[in-house]
């Protein structure tokens, strides 16, 4: 048996006792001291495990939230497709299987070991993907209008993104739980607020897509759409139209995706066709797009710069840069600052209010950077959902 009194007397000595006024076993303070000291090795051994439990609990709560969002998005997509089917063919087919197949749809990016010709391969894969998705949607709700199909495409894209976020988070959560790896769990916990924010934005985006309302990203097409209003529109590429007008002795070519469908068009292909193939002489290109603001910057702020203002996977940007570099055409950019959430949810008033400032900036760029007799191409970049021309 352990001789407790000798241990106490040793402790007594440790704390400077020995003169008869050391630790008294009946004193509460002595027990507090012992427990305090004993807790240190306990936490040295179990602190990480306890912390893991707390983190797992927190991630689990967020995962439930993500699951609810995913389920809601799936349900909304199914309901919308059902309505579209009824509208177009007065049949009532359950599209759940078709929608579920879309949610699991994936695209394999081309190999980048040899980067030469990578953009061409990427373009080919993305076109194949777009065509396949569109054909499947058309098959799912035969007879639906193009506008309706583009809405469904956007809704399914948002639902697929939500599904992917949920599945990736679940993967790391289960992996972290299985291995009790703090490294995985802490990383997941740290990015979780950003993922939840993005997931919430995607969920709200579905609402805007369903109603065909303009989103923050639509500001570029909205500005160019106003300039095109009432003018003859010609097809420049798939889902992309252009118009011509005169401004202070200059010829202006206006280019945007064909609205009010939910599409970004193919501005890269359009400029290649117009400038490269048709031989239209362009002296400057002005691009208008929504751009991500930094924290602290105001939504709807307008800024001016140089370069191809276009997002996406990079194919369109490459095509625009290629043509402009080949023909030595300077590119000017006008951007409207907004957050990721603002860019995919209904256009905020602050962004719509930037319309006038963007238009003024474009005309001042035209006047400053070009002279009479020159030709200018203005491209409204972004999803043109809810914006006609």
């Amino acid at each position, binding site marked *: 048996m352990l001789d407790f009194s000798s241990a106490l007397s040793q402790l007594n000595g440790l704390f400077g006792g020995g003169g008869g006024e050391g630790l008294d076993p009946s004193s509460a303070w002595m027990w507090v001291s012992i427990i305090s000291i004993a807790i240190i090795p306990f936490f040295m051994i179990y602190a990480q495990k306890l912390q893991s439990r707390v983190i797992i609990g927190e991630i689990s709560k967020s995962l439930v939230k993500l699951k609810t969002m995913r389920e809601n998005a799936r349900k909304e997509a199914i309901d919308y497709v059902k309505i579209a089917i009824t509208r177009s063919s007065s049949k009532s087919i359950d599209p759940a299987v078709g929608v579920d197949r879309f949610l699991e749809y994936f695209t394999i990016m081309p190999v980048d070991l040899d980067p030469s010709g990578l953009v061409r391969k990427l373009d080919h894969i993305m076109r194949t993907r777009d065509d396949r998705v569109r054909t499947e949607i058309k098959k799912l709700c035969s007879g639906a209008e193009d506008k309706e199909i583009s809405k469904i495409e956007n809704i399914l894209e948002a639902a697929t993104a939500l599904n992917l976020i949920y599945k990736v988070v679940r993967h790391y959560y289960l992996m972290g739980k299985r291995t009790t790896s703090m490294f995985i769990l802490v990383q997941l916990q740290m990015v979780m607020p950003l993922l939840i924010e993005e997931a919430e934005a995607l969920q709200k985006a579905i609402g805007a897509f369903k*109603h*065909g*309302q*303009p989103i923050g990203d*639509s500001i570029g097409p*909205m500005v160019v*759409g*106003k300039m095109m*209003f009432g003018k003859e529109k010609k097809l420049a590429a798939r889902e992309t139209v252009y118009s011509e007008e005169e401004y202070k002795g200059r010829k202006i070519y206006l280019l945007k995706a064909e*609205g*009010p469908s939910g599409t970004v068009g193919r501005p890269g292909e359009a400029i290649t066709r117009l400038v490269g193939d048709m031989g239209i002489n362009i002296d400057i290109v002005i691009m208008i797009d929504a751009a991500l603001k930094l924290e602290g910057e*105001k*939504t709807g702020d307008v800024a001016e710069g140089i370069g191809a203002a276009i997002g996406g996977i990079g194919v369109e940007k490459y095509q625009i840069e290629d043509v402009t570099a080949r023909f030595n055409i300077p590119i000017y950019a006008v951007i409207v600052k907004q957050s990721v959430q603002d860019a995919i*949810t*209904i*256009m*905020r*008033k602050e*962004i*719509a209010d930037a*319309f006038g400032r963007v238009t003024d900036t474009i005309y001042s760029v035209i006047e400053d950077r070009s002279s009479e007799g020159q030709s200018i191409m203005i491209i409204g970049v972004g999803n043109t959902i*809810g*914006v*006609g*021309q």
Partner: protein
Amino acid sequence: MLFRKKKEIVPETYTEETCQSCNEITKRSYEEGDYVYRSGLQCKKCASANAVVITAIYGEYPEEDKRAKV
């Protein structure tokens, strides 16, 4: 409050219309089928047919949320 659940803020969606004839700008609640640059509507002020064009559709958030966003 520290543990208060975040309230979901839903924006009010409005449609802004401009009459090409009298330049009257009107703001109304969004209706299904509205899209920017949709024309062919009649002006309520000057009664010109096909003169009204939708010039903007946007979501307006409550003042409280705007302050939080800055």
